[in-house]
């Protein structure tokens, strides 16, 4: 089966190793992985900031690049949801594009959801020893139902102990442009998330969306915690 990897712009820029970890997981699951070279961003920042026009342009670009594969997989609930659930809204006025958006919508998956529910990966390739606490990112959780999937994958690693934090489902305060428009409010929300995560005394804070992870890491470091790693679940599942 051919799966196209949607790397996401944040992973491309900030944490390429997450992209390679996702690649490794998909290959471990038996996929032939393709990485379309011209990919950039799904257009979610444009759509969420009210720029309909740019959102349409980028949606069409992604559809043209990613249609025709068996599956499209992204290491982000937020980007996967944007392609799956928002593209049909964005392109509602153009019947031909809408049809293509709807087809792609059925093929796009968030990484952990894909590994657990589509390819049913039973042996993750990594070796990770230590305790982790898992932050449920909002869009993945509430729009795609990503909750049990990452935990099921973590449970495949014998060395991992999951320590659930209080209010794991509460927003971390990132919110994309929100974090650079209302920085003080955003950081105050992030502080609650960090406090809840740190209170578990887990060795690492883990999540499935890089935006949230950068927010949490940025707050954690500002609070003086230089030690606790903040990791994408793909990194944990492929750790050597």
């Amino acid at each position, binding site marked *: 089966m051919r799966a196209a990897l949607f790397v996401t712009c944040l992973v491309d820029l900030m944490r390429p190793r997450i992209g390679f970890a996702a690649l490794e997981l998909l290959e471990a699951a038996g996929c032939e992985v393709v990485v379309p070279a011209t990919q950039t961003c799904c257009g979610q920042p444009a759509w969420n*900031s009210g720029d309909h026009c*740019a959102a349409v342009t980028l949606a069409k670009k992604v559809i043209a690049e990613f249609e025709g594969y068996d599956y499209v997989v992204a290491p982000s609930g937020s980007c996967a949801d944007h392609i799956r659930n928002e593209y049909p809204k964005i392109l509602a006025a153009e019947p031909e594009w809408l049809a293509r958006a709807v087809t792609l919508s059925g093929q796009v998956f968030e990484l952990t959801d894909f590994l657990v529910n589509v390819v049913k990966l039973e042996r993750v390739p990594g070796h990770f020893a230590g305790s982790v606490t898992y932050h449920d990112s909002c869009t993945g959780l509430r729009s795609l139902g990503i909750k049990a999937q990452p935990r099921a994958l973590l449970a495949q690693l014998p060395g991992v102990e999951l320590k659930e934090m209080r209010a794991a489902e509460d927003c971390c305060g990132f919110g994309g442009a929100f974090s650079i428009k209302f920085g003080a409010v955003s950081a105050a929300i992030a502080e609650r998330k960090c406090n809840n995560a740190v209170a578990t005394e887990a060795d690492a804070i883990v999540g499935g969306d890089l935006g949230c992870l950068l927010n949490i890491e940025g707050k954690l470091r500002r609070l003086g915690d230089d030690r606790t790693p903040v990791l994408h679940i793909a990194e944990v599942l492929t750790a050597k």
Partner: protein
Amino acid sequence: MESRSRQFKANTLAALSNPGLQQNMRQAKGKFVDKRAKSIRELDDFDGTRTAAAAIRNRVLDNLDLWLEKFEASASARGATVLWAKDADEICRHVVDIARRHEVKKTVKSKSMLSEEAGLNLALEAAGIQPVETDLGEYILQINNNEAPSHIIAPVVHKSLDEVADLFEKVHGTPRKTEITALTREAREVLRSHFLTADMGISGGNFLVAETGSVALVTNEGNGRMVTTLPRVHVVITGIEKVIPTLEDLSTLMRLLPRSATGQSISNYVSVLTGTQAAGDLDGPEHLYYILVDNGRADLIGSEFQDMLRCIRCGACMNHCPVYQTIGGHAYGWVYPGPMGAVLTPLYTGLENALDLPHAATLCNQCGVVCPVKIPLPELLRKLREKQVERGLRPQGERRAFKFWARLAASPTLYALAAWFGVRYLKQLAGGRKTITSFSLVPEWMLGRDFPAPEGKTFRELYAERGEKK
């Protein structure tokens, strides 16, 4: 009420640097969220009930004019007078006229957010009529120089017990009390004489029942009963969108409203009031008026924001909102705070008067999943952002930045080039550390956080290099 939503950003900073408020908001969050979560488990099919409730509200909104006429006919047949108000001024004019017609000197009020929209207390005072708030929270605010409520069902959620104790001591001139029961007894003693001497009662209305011409009131303190039954005149002020077809529909909505609002299976009082006092009735007002208010609502009918009119004012969206929990209700600057307020304020007071509010949300959709009538609040906030862009209301710098970014993202070559430079620049800024601690491009981010450093090369570069090695 005058809007201070334009100062939203400054309001948030004030809220964040107010330790008392922060403490009070933390306590409120636990109370509301946990109690609601527990009480909705009593329903076999909470989500199905939400769907049914949304359908009831949609049915009305799709033909609102017809349902309002039906309500008017039913209410008139039971002796009530139905008046219409298009805006805040007209609400005040109607109330003052009614008060003058019946020679009213003093009026007792139970909670009405519409009266906040209208700034009614000030208008009554100006007309020489004494308004007395009798909901405990609203009473506390009134004796504190007519402070604004910070929550639609818990107006003093921002205050601590100590603050109320200080206020009562100062205003009532009594020895300071710190027991809640002693404070409420003191308020009750003050209010009792007002109930007995008022000539007119003013209430809001949670629902208007079209088939019977009734108003349904959902309260906890019992003041609502006193306000609506003791004085000679009762005035109900509520929005035109509050009408529902039948009493059966009321029972469906009542399965959701108290649970979503306070986590109660049922509120202490549910009053269904129908008509004036008829021969043989033990109580009820001699004169009953309904003031049904538009104040921006009719414009939403048939628009892409019509879903917002389903709102039953439970407050669950704000109770669960990470932003509201962090800044409290006053920061939003007008009558309605939290996600529902961030949608309603620009729609009712003008997009340009509340530019920040639709952006003051992480779009986490916690509000959307708790809303008892399934209002897609994040989607409505996003549409408001789109309206701002369409009307050219966003700052030029922001628009330029987004346009530049969108152009890059649409062109893989330019994008790759910009990314190549960008990650190297950031890596250099970090200077070998894990994070960047000073970064003038995103000052807001840096207010309370570091900026994690990138790895230094993009995925696309590394992937291409890997391909070459193979």
